């Protein structure tokens, strides 16, 4: 039987207290490294606790409230989209010269967020980072949902969205191919591939857990549903053998995609001749930024989840600490990127490039540039201090700030570069309209609606991998 929510919260409070004690001990140099799973767990307790969230826990009022809010936003998104299709993209503030604005900013931002999942799952799996286990599942889910959100925007921002399929290379009566020289076509391939592989990888990772749920649920309907999704998983040695191999292979397949997607999104800009876009550093810089924002988003989600659902044992301070380190590291890479922007503008002697930097820092939109510096560069510096890395509120706030900062970064790149390029006669300000904001907020609606559904019907932490972790720890112990 699973413990009642009341017990759970008492337990979690207790564990929290123990963790704090250990932390204090560690500060005094007594303890060791933080554990990736709190001690005292057995196979059964792990399975119980994670599957209970889905199977036996009552739908809480908070969940209903959160879902309702998200769903409302999603409906707003749908409404705005209907209006968009009826009227045309003129309802946004997009204009000439700022031909790309909020939709592309949102696209790049969501794609960036969609990076952490696969990175955590695949890359850390290949690198044998065991601490990935408790966060990879929902990080992957987050990836899928973020990529879904991201994928909407390039379609919506088309002038004629009903012919979006012309971007695909399909045999057609017009005998026309897309223009393979255009980075937008590469983008289509990159995002589609990423989405497909991420979905498969996530689903493959779910199979043993789906079987667990199938076995444990008492609802006939759920049994059928989970059963079908579990693809007849019985947990035989042969199954496990093939599964492990396949999962590893998929991880190998997914890893280059992590790098490729955002590299190519970076090329969307770098291939253009717009000053502020036309630089070779964009691909690595975008990948670093994506990991940066992806980890920030994982943190933003993990902290409330582990608190509400009492998963402090599995998503431990060790995880948060590691993620904070990743944020600090990638944030520093971003800093390098910004510095190199400035340096190359100066060093190139190109008047347009120089103007872009000056305009970023001193122009009409200077507020966004300095806000971005504050969010992305200055704020993460607190993570140099271990105490900050282990303070849950600090982590949460910093992760939110980093998310905002990364959105601003795309705004700076897209809008500021475009609004003043070569001919001063064409310079023009860009002002978003209420529909721009509706689509931005509405995309959160889509994201959180999916996320709420996910945590309600699927195990948000990989049960079988946790069990493996318990086994290893016991073995060590």
């Amino acid at each position, binding site marked *: 039987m699973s413990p009642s929510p009341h017990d759970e919260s008492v337990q979690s409070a207790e564990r929290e207290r123990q963790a704090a004690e250990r932390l204090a001990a560690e500060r005094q140099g007594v303890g060791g490294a933080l554990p990736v799973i709190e001690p005292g767990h057995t196979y059964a307790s792990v399975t119980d606790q994670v599957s209970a969230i889905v199977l036996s826990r009552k739908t809480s009022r908070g969940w209903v409230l959160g879902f309702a809010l998200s769903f409302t936003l999603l409906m707003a998104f749908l409404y705005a989209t209907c209006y968009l299709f009826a009227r045309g993209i003129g309802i946004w503030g997009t204009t000439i010269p700022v*031909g790309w604005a909020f939709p592309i900013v949102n696209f790049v931002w969501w794609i960036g967020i969609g990076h952490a999942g696969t990175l955590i799952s695949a890359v850390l799996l290949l690198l044998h980072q065991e601490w990935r286990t408790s966060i990879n599942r929902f990080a992957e889910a987050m990836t899928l949902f973020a990529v879904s959100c991201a994928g909407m925007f390039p379609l919506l921002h088309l002038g004629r*969205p009903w012919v979006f399929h012309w*971007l695909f290379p399909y045999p057609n009566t017009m005998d026309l191919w897309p223009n393979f020289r255009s980075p937008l076509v590469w983008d289509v391939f990159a995002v589609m591939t990423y989405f497909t592989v991420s979905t498969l990888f996530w689903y493959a990772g779910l199979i043993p857990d789906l079987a667990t749920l199938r076995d444990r649920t008492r609802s006939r309907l759920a049994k059928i549903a989970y059963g079908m999704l579990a693809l007849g998983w019985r947990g035989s040695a042969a199954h496990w053998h093939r599964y492990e191999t396949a999962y590893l292979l998929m991880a190998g397949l997914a890893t280059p995609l992590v790098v490729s997607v955002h590299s190519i999104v970076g090329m969307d800009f770098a291939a253009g*001749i717009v000053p502020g876009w036309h630089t070779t550093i964009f691909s690595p810089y975008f990948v670093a930024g994506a990991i940066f924002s992806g980890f920030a988003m994982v943190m933003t989600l993990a902290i409330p989840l582990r608190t509400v659902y009492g998963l402090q044992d599995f998503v431990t301070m060790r995880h948060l600490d590691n993620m904070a380190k990743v944020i600090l590291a990638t944030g520093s890479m971003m800093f390098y990127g910004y510095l190199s922007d400035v340096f190359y503008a100066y060093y190139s002697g190109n008047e347009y490039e120089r103007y872009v930097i000056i305009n970023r820092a001193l122009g009409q939109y200077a507020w966004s540039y300095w806000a971005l510096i504050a969010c992305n560069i200055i704020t993460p510096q607190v993570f140099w201090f271990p105490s900050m890395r282990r303070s849950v509120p600090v982590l949460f706030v910093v992760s939110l700030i980093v998310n905002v900062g990364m959105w601003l970064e795309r705004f700076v790149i897209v809008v500021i570069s475009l609004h003043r390029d*070569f*001919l*001063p006669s064409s310079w023009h300000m860009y002002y978003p309209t209420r529909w721009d904001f509706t689509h931005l907020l509405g995309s959160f609606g889509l994201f959180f609606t999916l996320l709420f559904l996910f945590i309600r019907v699927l195990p948000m932490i990989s049960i079988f991998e946790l069990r493996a972790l318990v086994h290893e720890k016991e073995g060590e112990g």
Partner: protein
Amino acid sequence: MTETNHQQASGGREPPVSRESPVSREPPVSREPPVSAAPASPQNSAGKGRFWRSLDELRETPEFLDYLRHEFPSQADELTDPAGRRQFLKLMAASIGLAGATGCLRQPEEKIVPYVRQPEDAVPGNPLMFATAMTLGGYATGVLVESHLGRPTKIEGNPQHPASLGATDAFTQASILSLYDPDRSQTVMKGGRISTWGEFLTALAAELPDIRGGKGRGLTILTETVTSPTLADQLRALLRELPEAKWRQYEPAGRDTVRAGAKRAFGEYVDTIYHFDQADVVLALDADFLACMPGSVRYAREFIDRRRVGRAFQPVGSTGNAGSPHHNQAGNRGETSQAGKPDLRMNRLFAVESTPGLTGAAADHRLALPASQLENFAKLVAAELKVPEANGSTPAMADVPAPWLKALVSDLQEHRGSSLVIAGDGQPAIVHALAHAMNRTLGNVGATVEYVEPVAAEPIDQLASLRELVDGMRQDNVEWLVVLGGNPVYNAPGELEFAKHYEQVRLRVHLSETFDETSFISHWHIPAAHYLEAWGDARAFDGTATVQQPLIAPLYGGRTAHDLLAALAGHPERTPFELIQAYWKTRLGKDDFDRSWRKAVHDGVVPDTRSPAREVSWSFVGGQAEPRDELPAADRLELMFCPDPTVWDGRFANNGWLQELPKPLTKLTWDNAALVSPGTAEKLELANFDVVELSLEGRTVRAPVWIVPGHADHSLTLSLGYGRSRAGRIGDGAGVNAYSLRPARSEWFAGGVELKKTGEKYPLSVTQHHYSMEARELVQVGTLAEFNANPNFLDHGKSHHPEQLTTLYPKYEESENAWGMVIDQTACVGCNACVVACQAENNIPIVGKEQVGIGREMQWLRIDRYYRGPIDAPEAYFQPVACMHCENAPCELVCPVGATVHSHEGLNQMVYNRCVGTRYCSNNCPYKVRRFNFLNYDADLSYDGEQAPVLKLLRNPDVTVRSRGVMEKCTYCVQRINEAKIDAQKQNRPVRDGEVVTACQGACPTQAIVFGNIRDPKSQVARLKDSKQSPLNYSLLAELNTLPRTSYLARLRNPHPDLEGPADDDTPPVEPTEIDRFKREHAFKREHS
């Protein structure tokens, strides 16, 4: 069709053909709806091997018949009605009978209907050109109108017409839209109710005995300036018959001051014609002769013809002078030619003006003075020139720098007989008289200045005439008032309170194209025919007459002034066509009249009608004729009322093309504004968008402020033509009405205006926010002296040599034609004619004020305006920018669906059907020439598209109408290129140089745009692109290696050597003030978005 003298039409198109008259000899095609177009019903042929679709049909079950009735209702009726065929025949017979009945009536002979018998020349798809003329302020500009199967779609200049020389201004280009304006008045109105012309004639007939009984006492006819010989003839005949009747005239942007100036100088009315082609030094006294003056299209050409140094250049040692007709003609300073160096000359323009205008922008030296100071300035110059009439009056003017004056005077004196002093229409009579005196002293009369018989039929002091009319109305002396055109209730000076007195007239009749402010308070409103709908005649600035021929039957049964006057004379049956032919029969002679008439109509010019030269006697009257306020005190301002550069005096207020046309210097659209100088704005703490209240003698208006570099201090400009309340859906509510403030004075300015800030803001839409070039070499500028010293003085170090750069991509295939364009920035005066011509040619929509405000204007061609130098006296430069058709086009690379591709002839083509609208091409276009249909502009704007089907007639059938979500841009008028190529192919020859004329090129008064095949080394465009022959040629943003096919000739100025200060780079940039201004602006925008 006439065989006479087919002239080469602009655009290398069909030669203009005069429309045979009367065109129609046939009754209109019956428009009876087909009673049944169904073939014989199945019933009739049942069982005779017919086809059937189902067994039910074969058996004709009730279910099937029911189904059929629902599916094909008309057939079903036939099927179920046993007498269907009979009924059908009955209806047919009836309709034929009705058609016959109408056929029995005599059709008005000049009625134009769609072709019933197709004339030989009318080939569907091949447009015809017809000559006619458009008038503005009474003065005609000859045009050729392109007609597609009876639909006029585009206006070109008439090369044979002296006021056009093949080019037009923006108004003329846009007048085609006014023809199709859906807000035009569509019916006769009596007291606000729909009526008919017949009812009007009946009502008039009831009044005629009274009018005749009193010999016309109490009858007043109010016209605008009349140059139409026939109309004048009619008016005079009517006045002979009714000697007590009055003919009053009022033109809101009239030339009273010009006439009064002539009278003061010569004691009589004469018109002045200027010969800029003979002038080496020009002094313009607030005279915008490049923009708004009768004949300005011609003046612009003649003026610029003496500045085409870049084109006249011949490399040393080269022989032949084919491309430089102006080489020997120009002459300014007597430099001697040194070996190895070119010696080329240009004229020099000194402009003194209050409001920045095109002439000031083109000037080599510009001085900003409040309009009222021009009089003193003219006296000062006249005194320096030792003009006898200026003796004793040498006012000290602190604002006029001594070296400036000295240089001007010495220049004028050195060019006796080849200088020219010209005063503006807004300046008082004394300035005009002084200009005449200066021209006389300088020996310019007979050389650069010519005096001719007045062109206007009845030159009078129109303001006095209007004043008398108002007095008459006030004293109830006016019983009948017939207003022929014009809109005095709106545009009479506010001081006269015309509307109030107008309502006292017992019977008020108003003829106008729209149901406007005057119509609204008239008893009768008669819809006027557009000039493309009716016969008429008019004279150009030099008197040359044109017979205006209609291109289309009046869309809404419009009438002309001729009709109305004929009705007043008791002959309503006389049509304008008869009247005009009758008049010209007396002028052209009865012998062989048919032939000479056809030739005159065909050519668009009646031969030998130029006003005869006049020997004037000098009888100068000094002093001030009209009492005026003292010069403005420091705390009071002076207000300049000038006709608007886009809506003129308000008559174009409902013309969307003109409303959305950025004004040349302010780049304002859809509004006028109180223009102030940066200095005055700073002093009065005004910022852009601030609403101020202007009061003059108790009359007030509220207007937004717009700061204009180069405006005179202590002075405001509020252009006329805005603030209409009954213009239509486009014009209503745009801008503020300057007429309501205007005093009843002949000059266009008034002192003593009080300005009060209201603290409110009003959004204005401008298309160019940034004034400075940011030290980028966008418009390259040099002086004649630099050029003569070293023709290659421009620094082309930045430009790449394309052939040397390696590229991954294969080279384009060589083709027979390679299209390219050169724009001469010395010649471009920024008049906007090209922008409207492009809009008309390419079916470009208007987007409305809000959309312009957020940067979504659609014009394919824009004229960038930059300033250089100090903000209070900057130099202004114009740079027309359309698609550059880059050989390495950045847009083509990034389009994911290949919707923009390169043609083998070098055109960067936009495939609208393929475009999905990612806008990446626009982002990647360094010239930002691409325009995007953010909304369905045709349908969304209540004015346009579906709600106004008449506008569909306006479309150029050779150009696609674009839908929402599609990118578009300049095509180099690919439809015209293809037309020329097809013609050439049919004759099995290459396309000739000059055969393809783009719309912008055709409209350009100064021939600043040259287009052609750069592969042909002998073509004009190839010669201008050859760096050896044309050292001023450069590419915009050449360093990007886009290899644009459009290149520019650097602007050459010809400053006086004594005045050219240090290099301009040292002068403080315009920027800091700009930044502050835009910070304010955007703070405002944010508040309001």
